[in-house]
């Protein structure tokens, strides 16, 4: 199975481990990832205003590259990139006027031919969690993870269409394929504070505190995430919460799901 692959800025720097474990696990599972050339930052956030056009170009150019390489799927990892790409692609497909405007600026016309997929989605739909379970070399029996979805993977409800926004199960099913236990806790889809941590740290810290408490109370030993920003917030504010003594819980490590996948595949 071949995919065009868009890494995004963070995957090449702060989240190098996310990319490394993705590439090694994909290879082990027989998934062929081709990084597209000359990609630019996706813009990190999907534009929420109707009078913006320029922020669509970068993702559409990447999608055009995927199409040019003869691939029908573009794989992403960072939840931010996934959100921007998936929504942009949907907008191009559904909004005729927007499509006309975007194409007026581009060398080639893009009509939304490529599908945007997340690695997690590929593992579920293209490989299949049953097959993944068979390929696991070292089952993570007895390990208790709190799957943390965050927002960008799932929302907006109508546009992302990855899983149920209130009761998602894709992480849980992934974990059970690896032989690990998923902790059920009601904060798994509550926002971690996102980019507020850049300027309003107090708010992000409060948000993380609630998630941490809930996961811990329900028996979690660590978090699994798919987003570098979620990982940063969960890790950074756990440190601070302990430093100021507001939270009595021990620190829960935060892993990218690909890290534990690599472990389970004994890579």
């Amino acid at each position, binding site marked *: 199975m071949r995919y065009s692959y868009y890494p995004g800025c963070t995957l090449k720097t702060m989240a190098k481990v996310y990319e490394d474990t993705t590439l090694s696990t994909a290879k082990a599972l027989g998934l062929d990832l081709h990084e597209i050339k000359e990609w630019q930052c996706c813009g990190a956030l999907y534009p929420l205003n109707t009078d913006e056009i320029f922020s669509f170009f970068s993702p559409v150019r990447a999608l055009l590259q995927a199409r040019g390489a003869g691939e029908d799927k573009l794989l992403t990892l960072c939840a931010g990139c996934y959100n921007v790409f998936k929504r942009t692609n949907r907008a191009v497909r559904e909004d005729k006027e927007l499509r006309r405007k975007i194409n007026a600026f581009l060398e080639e016309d893009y009509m939304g031919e490529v599908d945007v997929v997340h690695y997690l989605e590929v593992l579920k739909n293209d490989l299949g969690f049953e097959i993944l379970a068979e390929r696991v070399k070292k089952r993570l029996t007895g390990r208790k993870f709190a799957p943390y979805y965050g927002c960008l993977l799932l929302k907006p409800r109508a546009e992302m269409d990855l899983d149920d926004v209130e009761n998602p199960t894709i992480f849980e099913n992934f974990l059970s394929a690896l032989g690990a236990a998923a902790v059920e806790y009601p904060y798994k889809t509550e926002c971690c504070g*996102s980019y507020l941590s850049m300027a309003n740290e107090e708010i992000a810290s409060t948000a993380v505190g609630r998630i941490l408490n809930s996961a811990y109370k329900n028996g979690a030993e660590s978090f699994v995430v798919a987003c570098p920003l979620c990982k940063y917030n969960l890790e950074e504010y756990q440190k601070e919460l302990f430093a100021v003594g507001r939270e009595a819980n021990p620190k829960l490590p935060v892993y990218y799901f690909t890290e534990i996948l690599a472990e389970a595949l004994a890579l």
Partner: protein
Amino acid sequence: MRVTAEEINSTLVREVEEVSGQKVSACFQCGKCSGGCPVVLSMDVLPHQVLRYAQLGLVDKLLHCKTLWICASCQTCDSRCPQNVDIPKVIEALRLLVLRNKGGNYLHPHDLSAKVLKNAPQQGLVSAFRKYAK
């Protein structure tokens, strides 16, 4: 607070509706947005009140509220809104009304803490500057 008929017909509200693509009149004030907002405790104007003030034409009040800089666009509210109002889009439009004015930047690079500069992922920095500055 006093509201006049002129304010209710404010053209600024039309501008917010145009930039956001949302109809503020669709909101029937059920409050489901505010109840579920993960950062609502830090807001001075609650999400449902953003729409109520907009319905009353009190855009000026909205342009000066903290809420615009606190919303994380996590889309929890709009994924539950029974009237299909995308509140993050309304807040984005208000934020842009501020940012597009002279001196409207909310965040400058020198505001960032050393910790953020050292450890924060690019994704977070790019997002913050897209939301907080021109």
